[in-house]
């Protein structure tokens, strides 16, 4: 019980920090203006304080709620079934919500089903699935998490004693492969002989398997892991218990591993606040928004206490590279882990080349394991 209380207080704490930074960065002309009040609804598939995907959205919800004129309503544990349609309609009809954030990936088809019925409501979905022909009052947005994974990789490469890292992925999907590649390339940019064991569990959420995988990896000499699952809590805690280091995913996980936490790849879903403002004022908005650090869609967790100044500086320098667009994630010469050449020397892929990233079905050199695809 005390665990859940501390989690909740952590969540609000994180939100306060977030809100604080946001107020500082909000243009001062926003204040003093009369803004139209607007109700914003967030719908989660699991609990808000899961130390994962849902918490990342809940943190964003609190930042968005701090915007002028915004009232927040939230509902959690809504299954990816027709149930979510009812919850969306209930928020619209009973709470008067004008912007909805149904946050689970599987909510998308239901959003498309009811969006045409409510043209005065904006539906914002974390997934980047919008395509021509979809409802105009819907938005898909998503971050290039491979960029913060690259930064985690740098920290891991510099900190590892054995040079053996571990990556636990959920589903064999393109963004998991991109994140894995980012992590491995970052590590090898700092330490050329670094390798990374890759395990795909096949489930979004399978804590038992995740814990077993971490234990197996530790037994093989891996000393830093990152877990790309819905809630990396169990993986990070297991790593801490086994005395190895870890990186976070989705949201700030530093509290779970006071000794071994390095840093983590975080979403910045609070960027959705821009869409809320646009809807409030009638300004134009994009239907599809993807980006990395430069587009403010991703962020880096605070460094753990184990990370020395030198490592922090190297990581932050690379982040600046992404911000300035001087650092490209995929650049030649680059081989996959089967020895095939992916990019020739001098070849570069733009950090916003979505078509390229969608087609990543391979793991880079240094990754040990397979994608699990045929």
């Amino acid at each position: 019980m005390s665990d859940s209380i501390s989690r909740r207080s952590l969540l609000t704490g994180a939100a306060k920090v977030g809100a604080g930074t946001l107020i500082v960065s909000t243009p001062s002309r926003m204040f003093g203006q009369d803004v139209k009040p607007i109700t914003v609804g967030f719908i989660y598939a699991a609990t808000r304080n899961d130390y994962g995907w849902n918490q990342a959205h809940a943190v964003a919800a609190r930042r968005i709620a701090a915007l002028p004129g915004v009232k927040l309503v939230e509902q959690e544990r809504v299954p990816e079934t027709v149930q979510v349609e009812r919850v969306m309609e209930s928020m619209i009809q009973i709470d008067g919500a004008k912007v909805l954030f149904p946050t689970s990936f599987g909510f998308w088809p239901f959003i498309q089903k009811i969006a045409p019925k409510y043209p005065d409501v904006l539906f914002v979905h974390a997934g980047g699935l919008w395509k021509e022909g979809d409802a105009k009052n819907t938005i898909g947005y998503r971050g290039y998490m491979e960029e913060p994974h690259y930064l985690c990789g740098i920290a891991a490469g510099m900190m590892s004693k054995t040079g053996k890292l571990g990556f636990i992925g959920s589903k064999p999907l393109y963004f998991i492969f991109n994140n894995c590649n980012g992590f491995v390339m970052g590590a090898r940019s700092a330490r050329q002989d670094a390798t990374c064991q890759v395990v795909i569990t096949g489930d979004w959420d399978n804590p038992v398997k995740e814990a077993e995988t971490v234990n197996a990896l530790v037994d093989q000499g891996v000393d830093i892991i990152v877990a790309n699952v819905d809630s990396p809590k169990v993986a990070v805690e297991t790593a801490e218990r086994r005395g190895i280091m870890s990186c976070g995913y989705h949201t700030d996980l530093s509290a779970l591993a006071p000794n071994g936490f390095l840093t983590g790849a975080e979403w910045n879903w609070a960027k959705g606040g821009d869409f809320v403002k646009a809807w409030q004022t009638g300004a134009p908005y994009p239907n599809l928004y993807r980006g990395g650090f430069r587009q403010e869609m991703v962020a880096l967790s605070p460094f753990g206490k184990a990370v020395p100044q030198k490592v922090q500086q190297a990581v932050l320098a690379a982040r600046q590279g992404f911000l300035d667009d001087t650092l490209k994630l995929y650049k030649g010469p680059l081989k996959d882990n089967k020895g095939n050449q992916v990019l020739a020397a001098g070849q570069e892929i733009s950090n916003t080349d979505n078509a390229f990233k969608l087609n990543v079905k391979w793991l880079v050199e240094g990754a040990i394991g397979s994608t699990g695809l045929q």
Partner: protein
Amino acid sequence: MGPPEAHAPSPAHATQSWRLTTQRLPTDSLESLLLSLAALAVAAILFGGFVALQGYDPLAVYQTLYLGGFGTRFSIENTLTQATPLLLTALCTLIPARVGLLVIGGEGAVVLGGLAAVLASVALAGAPASIGTILTISAGALAGGFWIAAAGALKHMRGVNETISTLLMNYIAVALMNHLISGPIRDFSQTLKAQSWSIPNAFMIGNIRGWSVHWGLVIGLTFCVLVHLVLRHTTLGFSFDILGGNRRAAQMAGLPIGRLMLLACFLGGGAAGIAGAVEIVAVHGAASESLVVGLGYTGILVAFLARQNALAVLLVALLLGGISASGGLLQRRFDMPHAVTIVLQGLIFICVLASNASTGRWRRSSR
């Protein structure tokens, strides 16, 4: 779980009680009604105390419950939609209870009914829409019916406790569905979620004109009324009651015990199977984990709260449908955890079970 015979007369005057069943009906109904209302009131007070302890205003909470369940047209539609499958899954516990069996296998029958509906509809693709829909739903009814009848057969022939067997069969049904939808009948174009092939669009049943409530509601209502008529006003229903009241008396009266048991189980399972099939043809269009959301288990609660009376099921299903419809609003307005409505359902269930124990006591003492 309460004893299935709880509503039946005590063995001492069992032999003559079946003769009196119809004559004593009004008093029985009044007593049942009063006890049910008392149980609800106690549950409401307990729940009020519970939320007050959590620091919420109980009156405001009840107001929100009302708003979310019945306060607006949207709420009512939402409630009716939530209540629809409960009408049918309640019958899965209710009908066997009349012959003295405590069946809790509604969940499994819903799943199998849904699976059978998908398989039948895919096989029937191209058939005229109305015939296709009817056969699809019938397939669901047959699957659910045989599933629960199997538990009845085990009970009759081998003496296997039907409560345990139907409970365990729920897990088998869900495992069977998970196996089928993750391989043999999986729609591989759906990458994010394991689900079966979709049924032909022509077989889907839409909403009732002018309402956002699907036709399953009418099916559920019709069944409850039909079952009520059969149980109350036919010799079959009377035979069920005799068997449920006293098995030996039924035997002495020359009733076909085995057949009655199997039939009751088949009818109950069939109703839950229809619930599953309706979920497919009216809501999901394909079988997936979406079928396993506790419809069968909530049905048990409805049956008990309705004291195994098919007409009372209508009201109780509405009440519980309203509670689940307003669960989200409670969360949103008070920042209450999701589990709060489950606490309310649980309190109602416990109070109803407790009140069952006092059935007949009031009558005896007032004599």
